[in-house]
Each structure stands twice: as structure tokens, then as C-alpha cells.
């Protein structure tokens, strides 16, 4: 396998929606471009249509009339999955229980009529790539969850797919393993340089793995952007709250300052608004001496998280504010503290009523 080069197809999803036979509208019409060797993450809560969109790309569902799926400009909408050359990794892994690890990985190559020796060589390469050495002859039920995940991945990339489709591949694993495998998966995707669509409901996974993230909500696309764009400039309240932690503050703006119950904070943008919806990330707020800041509040609680602490401050805004502070700062519940927020850390969101 050629390392560090670009692989896979450039994808175009055009006007694809899905209404199931029972009338469920799982996906509103969406149009998306995915560049060659790009990793696109579909992120959203359970039931928002991520799997449906992935299955449309795979060819396991047909989009509603007028929708088209193009691989490198070629319209494959009418082609079934077996003609699309896609590598799929399922949440359940869907490994064949009647085949060994090596047979699972080599199955797609066998179907392509690759001679036995060549097949064995490629399987060996994939086994090494996915750290499965020594497990080649194991049965699937003799593997751990993490090993299964890697077999599923090796099996999917073995066929050198046009696009790798991963549907919550880490969700079935426990938290510690999930974090470690997330790193491994990221390295592997970069190394393979293959076009990939990765479905997850976990925003940390999306941030780490995605070149771009598509945030979805109720079958519609809420925002598309790089992880940084999504995190720092969320398009709306849903994205702001779903990706990372966010304080959402509703207040008027006067003279370029947000008018809050606990004081005033300068904002970038319009000088006057009768009602603004502003987002502030907890880690952008700093605890300071109440005498030096325009905004102050009362410490309502401190949650120590090891590497940092989350301080809840009431009476500064209409709702309690979450502040992430370094673990060295000492504050007590009931203490009055000042809060300093840089103007560019306040993001105004559209007022959705």
C-alpha cells in the first residue's frame, strides 16, 4: 500500500434526501462535496440521519427522486453497493464468524479473484498495519472489542476502496480504549490518505478525526466547517451547545457592551441591539479580582477535573456561567469573583426566538 499519498475518489452528494416507506423523513435534501483523501465527519445526536446519509453514499439506500451520488464525477446513484467499491466499518463490526481473522481481511480480495499468494502478502501487510500480528488464525469470537474493530477496518481498506465509510466504529468500546483507538485510527487514516466519511455522535472524536465536520440535526445539516470553525464560530445555538461546552447568554447590547445583571462586557460587532444571543466558551473566561473587571458574580460551585476545574458563577448573567480555570486557582463557594472575557471570545448567534 502506498503510504502518504492521496487515495480514493472525490465525492459529490447532490440533493440527496430520504423519506422511508413508512413516511419517516430521515434526511432533508442535502448537497455535499468531499475532496479526495479528505476525512469528513458526520456529527449529531442519535436519530439525526447520519447513518441514513452514509447508507445513501454506500448504496444501501436509494435517495429520494432527483438525488444523485457521484464518485469522481461518475453518477453511481443507480449502482448497488457491490459495484461501488466502498469500504464499510459497521458499529457492530459485522465480522464473519465463520472465517478467521486473515480470511475476514482477505475476503474482498478473494472475491476479486486475487491469487492466493498475492492475497496472503496483502493480508500480511494489513495485519502489520493494524497491529494484529499473531492473531491471523484466531476466530472472531476469540478477539477483544478493540481487536475486532481493527479487523473490521483492515477488511474494509483491503479492497482499496474509493471511499471508506465508518459508522460509529468506536461507540461499542469502553471509554479508555475508545480514546486510544481514536488516536490510532487518526494516524491510520492520515497514513492511508483515503477519502473517508466518519459517523459519530461524539464531538471529541469528530474534532480529532475530521478535516471537516458536518453537524446534523433532525435530518438537516446545521453547519459544515473545519473543527476550529465549528468550535469557535458555531452557526447557531444548536451547534454551539452540541460541540463542546457553551454559555449562552441573552442580553441587550448598548454602546458596544453586553449589558448583564453582573456588569458590562465589551463585544465586537454591532453597537446596539435590543436582544442579542451570545455564546462564550468556558475556557475563554478568566477569573480575576472583582475590583478590576466590569463583570462580577458569586461562586456557586467548583468541580475539580484534575487538569482543570470548572467554576460555576451565578448572578453574573441571567443564567449561571461555567468558567474553566487552571487547577491552581483557589476560589471558595460563596466568594465574589470578577470575570474577564476578551471581546473576540464572545460570539453572537442568530436569534432563534
Amino acid at each position: 500500500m502506498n503510504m502518504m499519498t492521496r487515495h480514493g475518489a472525490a465525492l459529490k452528494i447532490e440533493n440527496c434526501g430520504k423519506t422511508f416507506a413508512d413516511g419517516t423523513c430521515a434526511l432533508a435534501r442535502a448537497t455535499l462535496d468531499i475532496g479526495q483523501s479528505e476525512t469528513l465527519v458526520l456529527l449529531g445526536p442519535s436519530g439525526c440521519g447520519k447513518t441514513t446519509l452514509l447508507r445513501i453514499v454506500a448504496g444501501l439506500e436509494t435517495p429520494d427522486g432527483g438525488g444523485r451520488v457521484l464518485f469522481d464525477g461518475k453518477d453511481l446513484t443507480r449502482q448497488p453497493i457491490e459495484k461501488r467499491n466502498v469500504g464499510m466499518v459497521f458499529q457492530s463490526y459485522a465480522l464473519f464468524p465463520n472465517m478467521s481473522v486473515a480470511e475476514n481481511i482477505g475476503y474482498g480480495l478473494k472475491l476479486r479473484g486475487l491469487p492466493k499468494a498475492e492475497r496472503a502478502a496483502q493480508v500480511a501487510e494489513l495485519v502489520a498495519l493494524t497491529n494484529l500480528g499473531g492473531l491471523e488464525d484466531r476466530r472472531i469470537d476469540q478477539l477483544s472489542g478493540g481487536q475486532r474493530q481493527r479487523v473490521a477496518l483492515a477488511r474494509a481498506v483491503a479492497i482499496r476502496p474509493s471511499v471508506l465509510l465508518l459508522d460509529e466504529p468506536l461507540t461499542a468500546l469502553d471509554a479508555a480504549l475508545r480514546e486510544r483507538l481514536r488516536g490510532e485510527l487518526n494516524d491510520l487514516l492520515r497514513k492511508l490518505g483515503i477519502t473517508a466519511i466518519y459517523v459519530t455522535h461524539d464531538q471529541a472524536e469528530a474534532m480529532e478525526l475530521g478535516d471537516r465536520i458536518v453537524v446534523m440535526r433532525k435530518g438537516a445539516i446545521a453547519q459544515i466547517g473545519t473543527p476550529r470553525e465549528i468550535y469557535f464560530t458555531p452557526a447557531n445555538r444548536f451547534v454551539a451547545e452540541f460541540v463542546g461546552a457553551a454559555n449562552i447568554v441573552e442580553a441587550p447590547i448598548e454602546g458596544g457592551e453586553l449589558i448583564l445583571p453582573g456588569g458590562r462586557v465589551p463585544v465586537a460587532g454591532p453597537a446596539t441591539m435590543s436582544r442579542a444571543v451570545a455564546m462564550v466558551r468556558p475556557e475563554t473566561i478568566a477569573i480575576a479580582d472583582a475590583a478590576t473587571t466590569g463583570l462580577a458574580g458569586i461562586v456557586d460551585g467548583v468541580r475539580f477535573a484534575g487538569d482543570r476545574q470548572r467554576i460555576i458563577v451565578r448572578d453574573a448573567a441571567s443564567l449561571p456561567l461555567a468558567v474553566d480555570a487552571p487547577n491552581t486557582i483557589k476560589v471558595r463557594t460563596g466568594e465574589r469573583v470578577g470575570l474577564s472575557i476578551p471581546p473576540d471570545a464572545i460570539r453572537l448567534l442568530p436569534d432563534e426566538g
Partner: protein
Amino acid sequence: MSHKSFVWMCLLPLAAVTAAFFVLPMAHLLVTGAEGPRGLPEYLAIIADPRYRATLLNTVLLAAATTVATLIAATITGLFLQRHRFPGRAVMIAILTFPLAFPGVVIGFMIILLAGRQGTIGDVSSRLLGDKIVFAYSIYGLFLGYLYFSIPRVILTIMAAAQKLDPSLEEAARSLGASPWAVLRDVVLPALAPALVASGAIAFATAMGAFGTAFTLATNIDVLPMLIYTEFTLAGNLATSAALSVGLGVMTWLILALARTFTGNSVAAAG
């Protein structure tokens, strides 16, 4: 009372029932088989006597053919019914499983209605071909009867097993480029293997030992249960019929054990 002795106590009734209803009659049968004028070699007669041997072979072939045909027909039908929703599906399942309750006599009667001297097939063929086709009273009639008997049971088992199949396994195979035929060969059939072995075993054992259908169709079809019946009631040959019964049991058991070891690997892996 310790946990262990409690378990043993619970096993006591099981042991009593096993002894009373399985071991004792079977032992009696074994002894009876050796008590004829020929003594123990009575058992050898099953193999040595050309008539008995031919009958045994006939029975095994019939049972094997029934099993294979049943499995093929029931797998195709069962998979289709499990996967497709169409109007009339429930009615079709009801019709297919209707014969479940019928005793062998009724099945035999239905075969006569179908392929007997006044049967449907005879009527149609004499009108179309000018030649009346009648096969109810032969081994073919019996084969058809056993199919009729076995297919409903196997269909139900296959449908239950197919329902438990993880659809993403098939989707994974297809994503790797598998044609429908390859999916069937590499994914579906291996997953159904335990159900196929279990229901195939029942179909086979039933066809080996069923009596009612054979008796209804004709008294001169050469299958082992008929032979046992004639030896027992007509010839009053207690020892021979006991020896033949034991032979029938052992033979069926052996063939099933053989089938299980052959498919054992795939079954274990798919389980």
C-alpha cells in the same frame, strides 16, 4: 443439605424417568432381539440377509433424499418468506405449515388424492398425454409424503434462524463486492448451518422411522418400519422385529452423528 446433594436430589426423578421409559424398554428390546431361534446372530441378519439389507439401503436412501430435498426447498422458501413482505404472505405461511398437525395417515391419504388411481395428476396427465401417471403407491409417493411432512417443520426453523441473522453481515459482504450468490454461500448458509443440521436431523430421523404414511399408501413398500410391522404382526417374529428396531435406531443415530461431525466445524464457528 449441601448444594451438591441438593442437585443430586433433583436429578433423582430424572434418573427414575430415564430408567423407566428409556433404558428399561430399550434393554428389553435388545434382549428380545437376541432371544430368537438364531440367538445373537439375529442382529447380523439385518446386514447378512439380502432382503433386509436391500430394505435398509432403501430406507436410508429415501430418508437421505427426503432430507436433502426438504432442506433445499425449505431454505429457499423460508428465506424468501422471512425477507419479503407481500400481500398474501401470512396466508401462504399458514398454508405451508398447515400439514404440521396431520398424522402420517392423512398425509398418505392426501398423496393418494394427488397421485393415486383417481388422483389429480392421473386425471390431468391422462387428458393431456393420454397416459395416466400414478405413483402414489410406490416409493416416490412415499418420498412426496415425507416431503409434505418435513417441509413445514424445516421452514419454521429456517425462518426463525434467518430472523436472527445480522443484516449488516450481508451488507458487509456486499460492500466487499460479494454477489448475491456469494453472500448466500459465504454468509447466509454458514449462519444457518446449525438450524439446517438440527432440522435436517429431524427430517432424516422422521423419514427413517415414519410408518403411517407408508402403511396408508401400500403394505408392500420396502422400508424398514414396514418390514418391522410385517415381521411383528403377520409373521409373529418377535426377535427379528426387535433386532430390526434396534438396527433402525443405531443406523439413524450413526448417520446423524456422522453428519454432525462433518458439519461440526462450520457449526461451531457460526455459533
